[in-house]
């Protein structure tokens, strides 16, 4: 006779309310797992999906994603001349917040050399890659743009010729690919009034330094900041070349820093993602502990409510294993029910969640095993109390 199920049957409302509550808590644990993995996935997506053997950045910088890095626009030419380098292309990446599709959205613009350069979009879900030097864009579907739709950035409109799915920057924001000159123009474009004011201020400084107005006007173009800088140079090595030798050559002779794709990934994991991952890891551990404590308390309260029937069971001769089984089964039913609710909630929330959720089956299985073990542990306090209950408690009014 299954006493646990019969007790649950009698308290169905209470049981379902409990598993709904604990289930929601466990859903947060599972979502935290998903965010934790999603955070890592997003953080290294661009590195993993850019077919570069080396990332060359400004000397001493951990860029281009962890730290800003500015290099001359023609840096890729000297890198390309390095022995062992098959291909070197300029790369620019920066975050932007503009109105897209009627709403203000945050995204990252990536500029790359359209004709044979590295760093362009990977697999497209619709359309084609960039084929023109100007006014074309490839956007991620998360931005809500349609193929052939028009996207205004700065003073130009760009036609969306291709769509990616899941192309994200390290913060999880969608990516827009532009040609390098277009991306530089969007980044460095200044308001004409601001430009005139800056030129006037520079001319005044020159005149105060003793130059005539005519001389200052001649010198002004030399003082203007260059808009031809890039953030990194992506390198593809020639077959058979030694990575370390190429790296050393670039660092020694070109005075740039160079990282392999694995080093670039480690920079992200150890730098920008480390604290976030630690915080998420801590939160999910705490939530697991809190869930187990809640299940323990619920099982304990359920047992205390039944203490007189338990004493009666002992008095009429029920062996201990009958009582232990009843408590354990209730605890496991609570844990299993709660986990099922949590799993269902997580599946429902996955596609609507604003950040990438990566749900690894093995991680779900581990969480399930931890909760199951926790559920069993949680029932120990109740079992201990039940086994200590004297049968004589059943006697008397």
């Amino acid at each position: 006779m299954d006493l646990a199920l019969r007790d649950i049957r009698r308290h169905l409302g209470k049981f379902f309310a409990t598993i709904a509550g604990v289930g929601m808590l466990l859903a947060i644990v599972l979502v935290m797992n998903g965010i934790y993995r999603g955070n890592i996935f997003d953080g290294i997506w661009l590195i993993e999906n850019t077919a570069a053997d080396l990332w060359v950045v400004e000397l001493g910088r951990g860029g281009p994603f962890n730290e800003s890095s500015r290099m001359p626009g023609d840096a890729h030419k000297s890198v390309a001349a390095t022995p062992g380098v098959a291909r070197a292309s300029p790369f620019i990446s920066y975050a932007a917040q503009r109105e897209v599709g009627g709403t203000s959205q945050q995204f990252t613009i990536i500029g790359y050399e359209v004709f044979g350069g590295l760093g362009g979009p990977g697999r497209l879900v619709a359309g084609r890659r960039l084929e023109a030097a100007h006014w074309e864009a490839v956007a991620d579907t998360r931005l809500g743009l349609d193929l052939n739709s028009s996207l205004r950035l700065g003073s130009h409109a760009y036609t969306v010729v291709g769509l990616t799915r899941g192309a994200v920057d390290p913060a999880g924001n969608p990516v827009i690919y532009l040609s390098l000159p277009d991306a530089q123009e969007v980044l460095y474009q200044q308001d004409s009034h601001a430009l005139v004011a800056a030129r006037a201020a520079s001319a005044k400084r020159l005149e105060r330094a003793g130059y005539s107005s005519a001389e200052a006007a001649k010198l002004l173009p030399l003082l203007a900041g260059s808009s031809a800088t890039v953030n990194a140079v992506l390198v593809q090595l020639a077959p058979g070349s030694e990575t370390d030798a190429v790296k050393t050559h670039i660092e020694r002779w070109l005075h740039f820093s160079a990282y392999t794709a694995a080093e670039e990934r480690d920079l992200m994991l150890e730098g920008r993602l480390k604290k976030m991952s630690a915080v998420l890891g801590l939160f999910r551990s705490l939530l697991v502990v809190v869930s187990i404590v809640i299940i323990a308390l619920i099982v304990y309260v359920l047992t205390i409510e039944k203490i007189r029937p338990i004493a009666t069971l002992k008095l009429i001769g029920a062996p201990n294993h009958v009582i232990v089984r009843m408590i354990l089964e209730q605890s496991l039913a609570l844990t299993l029910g709660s986990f099922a609710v949590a799993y269902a909630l997580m599946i429902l929330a996955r596609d609507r969640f604003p950040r990438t959720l990566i749900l690894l089956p093995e991680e779900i299985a581990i969480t399930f095993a931890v909760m199951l073990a926790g559920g069993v542990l949680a029932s120990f306090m109740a079992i201990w109390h039940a086994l200590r209950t004297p049968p004589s408690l059943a006697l008397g009014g």
Partner: protein
Amino acid sequence: MHALREATLSVEAGELAALIGPSGSGKSTLLLCISLIELPSSGAIVIRGHQAWRDGRSEVDARRFRRENIGFIFQGHNLIPFLTAQENICLPMRLNGVGKQAAARRARELLGYLEVANRADVLPATLSGGERQRVAIGRALANEPPIVFADEPTAALDTERGMKVMGLLRRVAQDRRSAVIAVTHDHRMIEGFDSVYLMNDGRLARQSALTGIFR
């Protein structure tokens, strides 16, 4: 200091015995000893010629002894609240290793014998006090124990209902050949017992004259 001294109680099969005495006199202790919940420091408990308790017996043995030899009727009925009337009666049988079908058959038979067959699938909370009492009696009889303990079986009942319960206990004692030992303070029912034992300061004495005991 002994809770029980010179407490010799002998009840025959089919006999209805009352155990009376003031609070703290040792009635409950005697009941706990006979049930092997408290073990006596000396003396013997003999059921149908066999000694129930010996040194070295474990808690597991004590529970098996209770399952096989004693039926309990509690003052508050103590039905398991999440089991139906029939399941409550099945429970001691299932604990004793009786099969599901056989236990259900016997439970139905007992419910019929106690005239509550129509309440078989009802939870205790929805049974009346009298129905609960009958189901509790059915549970006590489930394993056909040689001894049935009844703790204040008529205390909360009016005279008419109390008489009915006494009639039921009498039927149980005679039909089932069980020795029924009832702890009671209910002087209205005392004449319904075959024998009355008075417990005082741990000493037990059989009363030959029933009248005037409660004066």
